[in-house]
């Protein structure tokens, strides 16, 4: 079928007026948002600590000393004091950034891909397949997330890999749900119908028309789960199911220091402050991202 003749596009070099793409404009709006900038700065600082911490702070985080137990903040040689075994808090907090960020981010990233794939498949396919997938997901969703994480970790056995796996499985259902609802809305938009009417296959439509519109909202939701993941990971570590002592992980540190809360409350609170700062930075960034993406459409 020959296309009807149309005037050919003139090849003059006059520059095309291009608008910034969606993600570029989202980024531009984020850069004008002071809260987003501050949150991003904190997260960046934590990343630097996680990557280069051991080179920044030379003190051994494992060296314990019975004589220097529970020193207050400002002790010479231990600017942030020492813990219940006399280990340097600064070194442990800096080294702990690696574990805590790793345990907080990895399960969410894995669950983001898995959940988005499941949810978008269910939402775009709809019908019986969609219902079957989502009802299966709902079974997992019915358990409280802490309980599910503990149960899975316990069943799989202690260890960091198993803790990561169980946390990932905990986050797949909520992410899949968000993905499914976004994909269901998109499926009925006219531009998806128009793409079907042009003869495009389901995979092409999902790649070009659904992913671009769905990944943003799913990503925002996943970002807000990072803090939950960090806290759940701490809980697993406390139960001996995740990171094992003497590794410095903030949740684990918080839990072992809790008995010292009456002796050295400020020192005991430090890991909590780090968890709090990290969580709130991720949550504020997620919030800023949400409003930066909430333009039109």
């Amino acid at each position, binding site marked *: *079928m*020959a*296309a*009807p003749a*149309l*005037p*050919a*596009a003139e090849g003059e070099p*006059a*520059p*095309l*007026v*291009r*608008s910034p*793409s*969606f993600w570029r404009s989202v980024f531009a709006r984020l850069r004008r948002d002071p809260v987003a900038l501050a949150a991003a700065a904190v997260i960046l600082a934590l990343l630097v600590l996680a990557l280069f911490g051991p080179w920044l702070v030379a003190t051994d985080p494992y060296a314990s000393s019975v004589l220097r137990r529970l020193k207050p903040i400002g002790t010479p040689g231990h600017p942030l004091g020492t813990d219940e075994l006399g280990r340097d808090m600064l070194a442990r907090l800096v080294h702990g950034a690696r574990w805590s960020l790793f345990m907080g981010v990895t399960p969410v990233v894995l669950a983001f891909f898995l959940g988005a794939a499941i949810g978008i498949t269910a939402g775009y396919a709809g019908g019986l397949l969609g219902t079957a997938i989502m009802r299966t997901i709902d079974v997992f969703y019915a358990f409280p997330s802490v309980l599910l994480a503990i149960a899975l970790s316990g069943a799989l056995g202690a260890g960091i890999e198993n803790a990561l796996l169980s946390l990932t499985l905990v986050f797949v259902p909520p992410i899949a749900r968000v993905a499914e609802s976004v994909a269901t809305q998109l499926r009925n*938009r*006219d*531009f998806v*119908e*128009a*793409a*079907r*009417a*042009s*003869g*495009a*296959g389901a995979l*092409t439509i999902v790649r*070009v*028309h659904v992913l*671009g*519109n769905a990944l943003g909202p799913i990503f925002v939701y996943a970002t807000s789960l990072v803090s939950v993941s960090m806290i759940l990971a701490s809980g697993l570590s406390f139960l001996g199911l995740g990171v094992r002592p003497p590794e410095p992980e903030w949740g684990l540190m918080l839990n072992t220091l809790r008995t010292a809360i009456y002796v050295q409350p400020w020192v005991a609170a430090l890991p909590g402050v780090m968890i709090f700062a990290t969580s709130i930075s991720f949550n504020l960034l997620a919030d800023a991202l949400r409003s930066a993406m909430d*333009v*039109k*459409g």
Partner: protein
Amino acid sequence: MASVQPAPGAAPPLLEVEGLVKHFPLRGGLLGRAGRVRAVDGVDFSVARGETLGIVGESGCGKSTVARLLMRLIEPDRGTIRFAGRPVGSPELPLRAYRRRVQMVFQDSWSSLNPRLSVEESIAFAPMVHGSPRAEALARAHALLDRVGLDPRRFAGHYPHELSGGQRQRVNIARALALGPELVILDEAVSALDKSVEAQVLNLLQDLKEELGLTYLFISHDLQVVRYLSDRVLVMYLGRVAELGPAEAIFEDPRHPYTQALLRSMPSLDPDARTREAPLQGDPPNPIDPPAGCRFHPRCAFAEPVCARREPALAVCGSGHRAACSMVEPGSGHSRAPRRAEEVALG
């Protein structure tokens, strides 16, 4: 047989629709009893190459369902669609090939463009799906933008939210033309536009039709617009064809009381012909449970007992003009019906 018979030896009509039925199941109910919405309940018509067939009717009469059925965005329950003499979806004319030749413009110019794609990418999408290299598809998109009156250098790189409604609908028209279709289904394509913009887009559609030799199926609730654009008009009521004929016959000599009422509801500029009463009383009946007999009889001023008993067939009442009314059908038993078939032929 309600479709217009082609003259002997002539090419088959571009599009032939026969006995098209689509019922939507209703779920729920206290005892899980499910009803069905009879959105399209046995529709026949044909569209000749090069003409514009207008489809009019109140909202909920099944116009848009017909459009989606023709585009095969939803599967019909029954009925056949033939394009250029070949059944759609058969090995003779696979769906993918059919969709290159039939395209659609949707009512909502905003919802029908992907907000994440620039204008040129939206238009180039379909040609790329059908195997055009990216550069070629983009060049075609630019040519089409130029053709629908949008300077490609200014608009090709823009995103939908930066355009006005009229500009977006021009982009949608360009997108529909990107595959070089023969038939374009315009589903309320200008209904959401301002009157002045609507006129511009209508003129553009007319120009495009002449230039590219297109055939239009123009669906609208706006009678003035349908009259302006259409060669023939099909009036739908509750999922069925009420009247079908040349635009002039439908507008000057409507035979179905429903068409007459619709026309009386058109606002007139003549102060002496001002509409004083609502020509149609009440809402259309529920398509879940349409009235027995003629579906229009509860609202019809000429209804007689016979109308509640039998469903009128589409009867000839002029050259290429048919109406589904017992007053038109000879020997139907209605007091105003012609007695013999000859009367019709003469009239």
